């Protein structure tokens, strides 16, 4: 893990936003919503393992079992 993941998420966010804008301009609002949800799911799938790791670390630090 490094700073790469932040850049990756930022790039995905930018691209999804641009795609949504193009779709909205072409009167395809429904598809734009689906694309933004898909983007959210993609980012969550990338981040979920890191969040799990963070919780584990917090548990370990405070010795919560």
């Amino acid at each position, binding site marked *: 893990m490094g700073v790469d993941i932040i850049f*990756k998420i930022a790039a995905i966010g930018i691209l*999804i936003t641009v795609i949504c804008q193009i779709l909205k301009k072409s009167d395809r609002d429904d598809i734009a919503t689906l694309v933004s949800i898909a983007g959210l799911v993609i980012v969550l799938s990338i981040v979920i393992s890191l969040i799990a790791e963070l919780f584990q670390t917090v548990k370990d630090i405070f010795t919560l079992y």
Partner: protein
Amino acid sequence: MTFKTIIGILIVFATTILGFKFGEKKRFKKVVYNDLVNLCITLKSDLGYLNITVDKIISKMPNSLKEIVKLSPQNFIEGQKIKILDKRFSADEQEEITLFFDKLGVLDSKNLIKFIEHYEVKFKNRLSSAESVYKKNSTFCVKIGALLGALIFVIVI
């Protein structure tokens, strides 16, 4: 790093081509209406010189029209109904084209010229709307293709 860049360029290029090909699907309608307008102009001039036969009408049909309308001399002689079953055209559009071909050869030359002129205007209107839809869709598909390629590249690499 260079390998990744090459892969990225290839992905974006491939998806852009795919988007372009997808956008080209809308081109058929534009071609058909353009051919119909041209057919109307040719038929009108031929009728003016009373220089038209059933065989001529069929032979003058462009390939795009032959693809959707199956015309034979029986359609004119025996009055068989013409059917268009193409999913790219709406029911309304199919009916309009069917009516046009059904009425060919039924009226006398003067009324037929008027009838063709009437349909020429209708087809011109359809052509302009098909052209605008094609323009809008082709650029849209290319843009979406390129952006999806970039997105895939970012996610995969």
